[in-house]
């Protein structure tokens, strides 16, 4: 789960990472109240989960309440790369002397944590990584050992941070590591990490991705949930507990297992079609799950055919077959289903389906054959 900047900053603050005084505002009046509290001048920042806010006009400096009013009014409701701004973060404007970069994430190849620090922050860090890779210092951190004060001091020195910033930056880095580990982040990134003209180091932005798998030990994460899902199909799928991603094609996809679902998308594409979605029903493809999956796909006007691709391992094909038959009785589908059923109890599954086959429910023997049929029905080439 990606956090908004304001959520990330509030998360940082819990771990003692210094941030600018500020607050959240959903209206122009609230923005003025937050600005009064933070102290002028302030920065008014659009809260959207997409980069390039500044260039799009979503970040503005305001010297007084009148300017806050003007900027907040302009930014609220603004569209930034398809995201509508509904919330602002208003904080006291810092006098910036230098801009740095700091982050923690997992290096999957090394199977260790990776700390990255650069004296060249405030810009697109991926661009720095490409054009001047030496400007970013990388250090592995063994999760068993953790980040020692010495290692933190060394990395900020190696990265060439200004002398006066180093002690505070090293301390902040340790707090960021605690946030990353104890806070169960996939990514904890500060860009820019600033040195102010009066010699203080703090986080001017926050990019935090939480590890959804750790939600069970973070009841406090509940406040972060349900804040944004632009696609109505995805919202419905989430309510139904389905792993769904909306795409723009005409063949609806239901498969069990993420790998098979991805593979199904690929095969549909290879035979000349395009998938309307990714939908992994996981291990328990019973009638309720099938009905929910079909229901979600049925709301998609672009769908012309539905390809159900099941390989039974733990999932038993007879249960899937029963599920589909039951689901068909419950959901009034606009598109025909092409079904491929293999694996555990496949024969029993096919027997159950034998009496229900029609032009609305077509059973194919192989994955490739089913993909061709579904694509043909969707109007693509066969």
């Amino acid at each position: 789960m990606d956090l908004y900047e304001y959520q990330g900053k509030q998360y940082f603050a819990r771990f003692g990472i210094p941030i600018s005084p500020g607050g959240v505002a959903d209206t122009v009046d609230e923005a003025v109240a937050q600005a009064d509290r933070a102290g002028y001048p302030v920065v008014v920042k659009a809260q959207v989960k997409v980069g390039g806010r500044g260039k799009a006009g979503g970040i503005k400096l305001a010297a007084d309440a009148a300017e806050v009013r003007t900027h907040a009014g302009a930014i609220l409701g603004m569209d930034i790369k398809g995201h509508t701004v509904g919330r602002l973060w208003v904080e006291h404007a810092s006098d910036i002397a230098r801009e740095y970069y700091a982050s923690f994430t997992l290096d999957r190849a090394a199977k260790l944590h990776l700390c990255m620090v650069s004296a060249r922050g405030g810009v697109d860090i991926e661009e720095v990584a490409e054009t001047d890779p030496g400007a970013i210092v990388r250090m592995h951190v063994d999760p068993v050992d953790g980040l020692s004060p010495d290692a933190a001091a060394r990395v900020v020195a190696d990265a060439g941070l200004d002398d006066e910033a180093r002690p505070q930056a090293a301390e902040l880095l340790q707090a960021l590591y605690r946030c990353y580990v104890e806070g169960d982040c996939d990514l904890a990134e500060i860009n820019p990490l600033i040195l102010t003209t009066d010699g203080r180091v703090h986080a001017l932005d926050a990019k935090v991705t939480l590890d959804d798998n750790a939600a069970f030990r973070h009841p406090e994460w509940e406040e972060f949930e349900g804040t944004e899902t632009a696609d109505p199909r995805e919202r419905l799928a989430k309510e139904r507990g389905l792993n769904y991603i909306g795409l723009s094609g005409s063949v609806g996809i239901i498969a069990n297992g993420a790998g098979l679902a991805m593979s199904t998308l690929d095969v549909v594409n290879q035979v000349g079609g395009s998938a309307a979605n990714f939908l992994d029903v996981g291990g328990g493809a019973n009638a309720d799950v099938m009905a929910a999956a079909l229901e979600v796909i049925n709301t998609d006007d672009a769908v012309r055919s539905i390809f159900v691709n099941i390989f039974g391992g733990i999932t038993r094909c007879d249960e899937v077959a029963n599920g589909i038959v039951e689901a068909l009785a419950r959901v009034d589908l606009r598109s025909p289903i092409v079904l491929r059923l293999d694996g555990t109890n496949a024969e029993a599954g096919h027997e159950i389906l034998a009496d229900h086959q029609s032009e609305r429910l077509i059973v194919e023997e192989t994955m490739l054959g089913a993909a061709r049929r579904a694509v043909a029905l969707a109007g693509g080439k066969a």
Partner: protein
Amino acid sequence: MSIFVDENTRVVVQGLTGSQGRFHGLRNRDYGTQVVAGVTPGKGGTDVDGVPVFDTVEEAVRATGADASFVVVPPKGASGAILDAAAAGISFVVCITEGIPAQDEARVFNVLRRDYPRTRLLGPNCPGVISPGKCNIGITSGDIALPGGPVGIVSRSGTLTYQALHELSQQKVGQTTCVGIGGDPVPGTSFIDCLAAFQEDPDTKAVMLIGEIGGSAEEEAAGFIAKRMTKPVVCYIAGVTAPPGRKMGHAGAIISGSAGTAQAKMEALAAAGATVAQNPTEAGERMVEIVRNLD
């Protein structure tokens, strides 16, 4: 022969008394696997369908000589269970648990690497391992596998592993061992570990590798194939059409930018000399051709 597990492997099921543990543990036993013990703290002295249950892995090992473990416990307790098994001297741990926090996985991996170098962890979030006709630890349906080799399979995805087994078995091409390494960010056993073991195994004549988008495991495997593999390798990578930046179910299957795309992985594998198929069926067909031309 086979890799990692065979007819002599003695398995303790951690979480045998739970509904999942009971179902899969007994299913593995029915396949012919030596399921010798179960472990559930507080339930020592009881049994599950004749399989004795112990309070700790250590006791189970002492009483039954178990050398492999099957961890079927919820995410909260899975890390502790894996380390318990390692501390008890278990040399092969299969963990199917889905949803373990990445921080826990990273810590467990590094504790094993440092303190228990002789313990191999398979998973988490994997379907397990099957050496057809000999041993099945995990959730793979035994009847889709065909004993006798000569193909070794290694895969990052569960259902695609079954698909691969199915494609080969249908063509009467058997398998030595099929390993599902799982789709999580920090798998205990990597593609390279499995490729190296298959390369050493005299009965494995060819290897099928099933990868997916995200991370760099397939690229690393390509490096190993180029340098060390003399046996033919057929690959398939899922996720060619996946939209960037989105998680596709597996915590591991996420791509950002161009790194980790299916295209990049397929190119690396092809450059390493592997046969790259466009879909699971084609991968099966390529492998059948290779096996038919072996002798």
